[in-house]
């Protein structure tokens, strides 16, 4: 039984022995913050809904180390981003650049919103027009008849 528990413990401790960001320290704390902000903005290609900062994938760790080394050697944020985009494409950016291929991404929601607004305005207008319309003479007579029927013995219909 004790052996079994020890085995379980070993199993879980190995699972929790995950990567941490602590190994990536800079002399300047400001640079540490810059590093953390940058890897928040980069996407992991393996776990696609995670940033490089949060992903536990092996590749994410490799890329974190690469970004760290480049920052240590004095590369600017732009240089590092360009380096990654040249290899992995715009996909690594959570904030994709504005260019013809990404126009639908940037303007699609806006266009749909405008379309919805137009439809909404039209519907409101047509309802208002229907409500404002005066009754014609024939319609008014018919209304009177119906109201009188309702006031009468009420046995009809």
């Amino acid at each position: 039984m004790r052996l079994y528990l020890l085995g379980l413990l070993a199993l879980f401790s190995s699972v929790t022995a995950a990567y941490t960001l602590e190994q990536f320290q800079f002399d300047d704390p400001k640079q540490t913050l810059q590093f953390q902000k940058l890897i928040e903005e980069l996407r992991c290609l393996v776990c696609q809904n995670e940033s490089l900062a949060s992903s536990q994938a092996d590749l994410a760790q490799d890329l974190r180390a690469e970004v760290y080394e480049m920052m240590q050697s004095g590369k600017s944020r732009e240089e590092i981003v360009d380096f990654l985009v040249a290899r992995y494409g715009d996909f690594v950016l959570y904030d994709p650049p504005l260019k013809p291929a990404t126009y639908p991404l940037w303007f699609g929601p806006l266009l749909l919103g405008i379309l919805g607004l137009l439809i909404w305005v039209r519907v409101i207008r047509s309802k208002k027009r229907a409500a404002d319309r005066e009754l014609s003479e024939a319609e008014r007579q018919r209304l009177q008849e119906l109201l009188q029927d309702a006031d009468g013995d009420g046995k009809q219909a």
Partner: protein
Amino acid sequence: MKTSLRFLLPLGLFIGLAALLFYGLKLDPRKVPSPLVGKPVPQFVLPTLEDPDRTVSDADLRGKVSLVNVWASWCVSCRAEHAQLMRLSRTLKEVQIFGLNWKDRAEDALRMLRLSGNPYVVNAYDPENQVGIDWGVYGAPETFLVDQRGIICYKQIGPIGPDTWEQELAPWIDLKTRTCREPN
């Protein structure tokens, strides 16, 4: 006329949206297009897997059509595609299969080649993912089709199946001139 439009317009919008989403179902979000296609292969020098004292470089990819196959012994899909690589190495004499052994241990990799056969002319050994990052590798297996000038014609993400060469890869290379081409 006006009433029919009122009913047809939402129906048309719905069908359009449904068609778009249906098309989206068939796309694989794991297949991220590589910006390296159409460009020369990244420069590299690595020791070979077979003999750590020997090196290979991007110069070894010139003059021939190559399939650069990124693989590892721990990668299950790589084992699945291994038989296809063996078949291609026997039947496709115009093309050399060049291995990039990625994030692996040499002893494990060599054992796999001993046990299930070696389709590679040579393997570059990249345990630390130095060259892998330059090639934009984000998982194994990946296979790059490279022409004799060293230009990447096509990138195959995921394992090579029985029809992958004929259907996915071959259309991108002209084996007579040994250069990339656009599929017709």
